[in-house]
Structures are given as structure tokens and as C-alpha cells.
């Protein structure tokens, strides 16, 4: 079951990179960046998951050697990563809107006034 998670996250990251490289519509490029983020988030969660572990919520006296729970750190990292991803997407979309107003197109091959 965990193998499926890893295959899925690699697939998502590669799909995202493929989208960014191949798609000429800058809106789709932003979607590609989002897909990379989701892939990385699934990877983080999968790394922290122990099959059969409980939720990592304990009071000080409750934790004993042999208590089996999932790793809480990756979950905290994922939350941070999701928030950052949402911010990046929001900013990318606002730039896309501005570019569309200015250039009148979403085609990345036409948005190349800075070159050479």
C-alpha cells in the first residue's frame, strides 16, 4: 500500500514537471507547479506514516516505550508546505492576470520581450 503512495507521488512530480516544460499556456504552467507541490506533499505524508500507528497526541505521562504512533514531524511539515504552495499559486495567478491584461495573451511563446 505504501508503494502505491510512492509511485503516485513520483508520478505527480514528473507529471507536474512535464506540464511546466511542455504546456505553452501559462495558466497550465501554474497548474503544473501545483501538481508538483501535491506530489511532494504526498511524499512527506507517506514518509511519516507507520502502518497501524495511532495519532501522535499524548499527554506527558501517557507515552511509554513501545507506544506505536505515526511520525508527527512530517505532518507539521506538510501543513507548512501546503500553506506555502497555496500562497505561491495565488501569487502566480495574480501575475498571470496582470500579464493577460498587459500582453493580451496567455501563450508563453509570445511573452518573451525580455530575451537575448
Amino acid at each position, binding site marked *: 500500500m505504501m508503494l502505491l503512495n510512492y509511485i503516485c507521488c513520483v508520478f505527480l512530480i514528473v507529471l507536474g514537471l512535464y506540464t511546466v516544460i511542455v504546456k505553452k499556456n501559462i495558466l497550465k504552467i501554474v497548474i503544473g507547479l501545483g501538481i508538483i507541490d501535491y506530489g511532494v506533499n504526498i*511524499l512527506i505524508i507517506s514518509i511519516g506514516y507507520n502502518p497501524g500507528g495511532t495519532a501522535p497526541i499524548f499527554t506527558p505521562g501517557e507515552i511509554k516505550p513501545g507506544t506505536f504512533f505515526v511520525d508527527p514531524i512530517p505532518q507539521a511539515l506538510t501543513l507548512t*508546505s501546503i500553506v506555502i504552495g497555496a500562497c505561491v499559486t495565488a501569487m502566480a495567478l495574480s501575475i498571470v492576470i496582470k500579464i493577460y491584461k498587459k500582453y493580451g495573451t496567455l501563450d508563453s511563446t509570445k511573452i518573451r520581450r525580455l*530575451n*537575448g
Partner: protein
Amino acid sequence: MIQHFPVLAIMTLFLASFLVVLFGSRNKIVRGIITMVASTIPLVLMICLIKPIMIEGQVISYWLGNWEPVNGWAIGIGIEVDALSLFFALIVTLTVFLSAFYSLKYMSRDDTLEKYYVLFLMLSGAVLGLVLTGDLFNLFIMIEILTFAAVALTAFRNNEDGPLEAAFKYLVVGSIGSSLTLTGVILLYSQLHTLNMAQISAMLQNGQNSTTVFAFALLLTGFSIKAFIVPVHPVAADAYTAAPTSASMALAGMVNKTGVYGIIRLLYIIFMTMGLSSVQNLIVTIGTVTMFLGVTMALNQHDFKRLLAFHSISQIGYVITAIGLGTALGLTGGLYHAMNHTLFKGMLFLCAGAVLYSAGTTNLDRLGGLAKKMPQTCAIFLIGAFSISGIPPFNGFVSKWLIYQATYERASQTGNFGFALVTVIAVVVSVMTLASFIKVSQSVFFGELPAEFSNVKEAPVSMRIPMWIMAILCILTGVLPAQVYQYLIRPAVNAVLSPVKYINVMMGNGYAEKFLSKVQAAPDKSVALAGYWQPESWLLLFVIVLAAVTVAALLGKKDRGVSSSSAEVTDGKYATFYSGEKNEFSRVGGSDLFWGLKYNLRHYFGFIGNIHSGVVNDYALWAVMIFAVYIVFAFIFLL
């Protein structure tokens, strides 16, 4: 007492970025006071740390929330300042202070300035946090804040054409880099179950497996994108050109230094792979390509700021080459050049900003003769141009001389001809840098003054003060290399080459010795031993290379079709200096000083001009390509 200084410096900048938007949105004076106070405090705090860290050799650690390690496992987020971190922190805080000072007047013609300062202070805080942190995930967070703020700053003047486009490209490539960094961090965590850099560094010495090697490739890609080395450099050129000049200075002065810092930290301390000759070859190759491609692209430019941006890339190539040598001398040269790069490149960007402020354009084909109108800016520009080209007694000479020596020393040690070739390329690039700056000074400050600029005035005093401060620092670091080496560079080099103390201070005494099989002794190289101060032989070398380049440039003269007819000579097309086609027919402008050189190498210049296509997909592809190269490299040589 002093262990609180690093965290206070970071907090000050982040806190001020919120205060600016709360209290400074209406009142210009309040905004200015908050910005200046917030940018001065970190500088003062970092200067206070010079004595304990640089001179007494302490390493300061600070656990946020006092979560100290339990049973040899780091559980909290740690801040750790060794001499390397402090060296970069000094560069960063100085840049922040001068850039903030300059922006007070420079940005005064823009509106919604509180947003500029929010982003600027956030960028500063993130960069400072990045170089001071001891936690790998915290480092990723700082990279993300940094990218976010830098992209928004690039797009700040979004009424113009370039900024939006440049910001979008930066965002796409930067996000790919950040995502790869995060993947690398989490893969290391999956193997070692810690995020503390000191602990990772110690534990990785037990041997690498395929996951940690893959993480190495991911992290190296992430930092390469932050340092804007080839092939992800076009993003930097766009961003530096499009951002407001005070932000360009911050980007060129400190943001790409975070990439350099990351590469040093990663290669020398976390993975300690710098002893392998394969890694040295890889990093030196990339650095050499970066410095050569950067300078040849700069020769091709018609915009002052874009030209400076490509020079900035080229100079980072020098730094990467030097640190890739893996020797104490190479590191000395690399760190010295990193500091000098911040000083002279920041200064040159400020000059470009002054020209833009006064004349309203940075187009090299339109400007001319501004030396009469802006004498001080011209003087500062010349100091910067001499520094970047490595002319004695300015600071660029010292560091470039160290780099030539380091590459040559490496060549004689290993018997590898490639390193000697690197020395030659480094000198040639230096000559081309000088050539390029002769062209800029000819087209901006000397020559004929166009009528439209007859009313141009000198830049205001508050813009000239930061420029003069940097100019004086350029000269001081050029004439007092022994002192700079003694108090700044040598502690940093020692910190890089002997990471035992870094690990022990963080994790408790004796921790590093448990893992490290052999403890490297810190090298103690004196300046005299490096034998660096020999201007005569350098001058001889410079003259030889200059002659060689001249011969190369003149070789194809016959092919140019110089006609014996005097009618065609007066045409101006074939005149010695001011020759060439009109702009609309050719990439090489008619006013170009180096028309002949460019004509001879037109296929090369055309080729590199065309591959910088400006299409975001291409730039993303290049980022993925370098990632692929690193993966293949890591699995072949490191596993």
C-alpha cells in the same frame, strides 16, 4: 547575552516588515524611520558578533523555545552561527542597510511604497534567516519566503512591460527549485530522522545510501537555482533587469549569495563530499561555463542593467569555480570574491539606478556623455568597473588573483591540464569584463551628450552616500587584503574546512568524534604563503592575454570586406570604432565599440542570443536538465 543576537536580528527585520504596513502606509517619515532602524539593528548586531566568532573562534548556538537535544537527538529548531554564517550575514546586513538607504530617495517617485518596504524587509529577514539557521527545514522555509518576496519585488513596477514577465519566469523556475529542495530535505529526514544540519552532517559519515545520494542531487539543484548558475541564469538576468534598482542590488548582492552559501554548506559540511575529485570537476566545470557564458552574454547587451546582470552571473561563476577547487586557497579566493562581488556589483547597480533616476533610461544606445552632468556617479562607476575587471589596487584584483593562483595550484597538484585551462579562461573572462566595461563607460559616461539629456542633474545626495560607502569599501578591501583575510576570510575558511566544532557546539561535546573517522585539522595559511601580492607578474599576464584577444579579434579582418574605395569608408559602416550596421538590421548595434570582435564571432553571439529565448518553458526545461545531470552524476560517482 550574545547568543540572542542572531535571533534578534532576524526577528527585527520580520517584525519591522509588519510594522511598516501597520504604521507606515500613510506617513512617509514613519515608514522611513522604521525601515532605517530595522535595517541598522541587524548590521550592528552582526558587527558585535565579529569579536567572539571571528577573533575568538566561538560558535554560537541558540535553540528556539529552549528545546535542547535529548539523548543526542535534536528535537527543536536551532540557530547556529559559525564564522561562515557570520561572514555571509555581514554581507547580507550591509547590503540590506545600503539598499534601504538608497531606496528612500530612489523609490520616492513610486506609489504604494509601504508594500515595497514590506517585501524588502521580508526578503532581508529571509536571507538573514537562511544564512544563520541550523535547521534544514527552516532553511527551506526561508528559501520560500525569499523566493516569494523576490518575485513580488521583481514585479513591483508592474505598469511596465518587463517586470511581470520576469517575475513569472522567476516564480516558475524558483518554485521548481524550492520543491526539489523540499523533496531533498524530506528524503534526508526519512533516512536520518533529524532535520538538524549538524546532526545530519555527523550521521551521514556512516556512509551514504541511494536515498541520501538522491537527496544530495535534489539539494544541489535547489541551491544552484538560488545561485543562478548556468543553465538557470536567464531568470536572474530578467529579474535583475526588471526589478527596481535598489531591489536589483539586493537580489544581486545577497539573494544569489544564499545559493553560494547553500552550496558551500552542502558540499563541505553536510555531505563533506568536496574531497572527491569528481565533485570538484563538476563544480569547477559548471563555474567556468557560468563565468564564460555570463561575460559573453554581457558583451551582447544594449541595456545597462541587463549588462550588469549578466556580469553578476559571470562573477558568481568565479566564486563557484573557486569553492569547487576544494582547497583552502580556493575557498579563500571564493569567499573573498563573494564579498567583493556584493560590494562592486551592488555599487554598479546603484550607478545604473542613478542614471535611470536622472536620465530616465538605461538604454546604452541612447545614453552618452553623462560624465559632465554626473561626475560623481561617473567616478563611482569607474571604481566599480576597475574593481570588477580586477585592476589593482581595487578589491576585484585581490580575489581574482587568489582565484588564478588557486586554480593554478590545483593544476600543479593534480597534474590535471583542465585546471590550468580554467586559469586561462578566468583571465580571459577578466579581460572581456574590462572590455565590456570600457564599452559601457564609452556609451554612458563619455562620448557625445545627446540633446535630450542636456538637463540631466547629478543624483541626489542620499543616493550618492550609499554609493560612496561602497566605493570606499571597494578600495579598503583592495588595499588592506591582509587585514580582511585575518579577520573575515580565514575564520570562515577554517570553519568550512573543520566542521567538527560546528557539530559539537550544536549536539554536545564529543558528538562529532563518534561519527567522524578522521578529524581534519584546520589549515593555517598566511597571506605571504599564498604569495598573492605580485602585481608585476599579473600585469604581464594581463598584457599577454590582452594581446592574444586583440590578435584573435583582428584575425578575420580581411573577411570583413574593407573596401579600398574612400567613398565607402566615409560611409561610417567600416570605421574603426563606430562602425556597424544600423540596429534594425542587426543584433550588433551601430554604436557598438566592439563591432569588429562581434562581427568575427557573430555565429557564437547569434547562437547564445537565440538560446536565451525568453520562453518560460525553455528555462524550466534547463532547470530540469541540470537536475537530471546532477542525479546521473550523484549516482555514478557518490554511491
